[in-house]
């Protein structure tokens, strides 16, 4: 907590907190990043669940690169948002839960990729999984999980503003 109090004294933190445009600009970046990450993730889940079957799953490789850019935008803007009010946010459950849900969303996407592309080399030396995988029922169930976590992250994110801890003395 002492280090967070020190952080709040820095010029950067003060500017973010007290300027007219500090938070709004960060929130703009954060909205764009969210649109990219959640948007592409939702479309991917839809495809795995059977929507637009003619769309090659491999084409999502490029789209996930864009999603990663969105994630980077949000990691940076999120860090800056945190730097603005660190002591209040660290004491706000909605904020901490949101971070946990984002980690869960990431893991669930990694798990989903595993169900599609396989993570082990076949023991019998068979060819590696094809570039265009077959979507198993297991993969379809796995595709639902990221949706739940991303929506959870959005909902708890919205809750931060309503439940943020009061300013420290």
């Amino acid at each position, binding site marked *: 907590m002492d280090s967070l109090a020190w952080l709040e004294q820095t010029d950067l933190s003060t500017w973010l907190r007290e300027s007219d445009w500090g938070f709004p600009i960060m929130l703009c970046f954060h909205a764009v990043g969210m649109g990219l990450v959640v*948007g592409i993730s939702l479309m991917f889940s839809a495809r795995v669940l059977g929507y637009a079957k*003619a769309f*090659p799953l491999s084409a999502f490789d490029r789209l996930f690169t864009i999603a990663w850019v969105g994630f980077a935008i949000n990691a940076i803007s999120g860090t800056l948002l945190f730097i603005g009010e660190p002591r209040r946010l660290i004491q706000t459950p909605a904020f901490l839960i949101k971070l946990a849900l984002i980690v869960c969303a990431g893991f669930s996407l990694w798990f989903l990729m595993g169900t599609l592309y396989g993570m082990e080399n076949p023991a019998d030396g068979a060819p590696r999984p094809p570039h265009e995988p077959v979507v198993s029922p297991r993969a379809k169930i796995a595709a639902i999980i990221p949706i739940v976590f991303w929506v959870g992250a959005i909902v708890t994110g919205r809750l931060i503003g309503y439940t943020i801890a009061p300013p420290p003395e």
Partner: protein
Amino acid sequence: MTEAEILHWIKETALGAAVRDSTWLFWAGQSLHFVGLSMLLGGMLIVDLRLLGFLQSVPMRAALAFLPLAVAGFLINLATGIEFFTMDPFMYWPNPAFRMKMVLILLAGLNAIVFTVLEYRHALTLGSGQNVSTLGRVSAGLSLGLWLGVLLLGRLLPSFEGAKGLF
């Protein structure tokens, strides 16, 4: 009816009153609004990127198949947007960021109509590696730019409360 009378009528609808009286309806609406915008942006990103000539391995028809998901996102946002507006029309209506946001949405809709009328049927016939005309690409680029603008203006609404103009 005067402008103020119309806004007052909207404010006094059952929906408006319900949202104002509720501890959670606005928050729930905001959450849905963000999900809707993600669907809209994600869907349009796929459609517009393919129209622009990226993702060449994708048959055009398959990319265009994501349009209904984008539209569904838009409809979610239209509904939640109405929810927000009825809650506090006197805040939204004069807000320059809100007005510009509505203008951009109308332009995006117009752009979509022009594309549908001029390019859509032909686009459906195109396979992977094939592309639409320059007009189609311009429309796709406009689409991405307009919706990005809508997103940013929406995020900036609170900053322009009480402001006379955007600049």
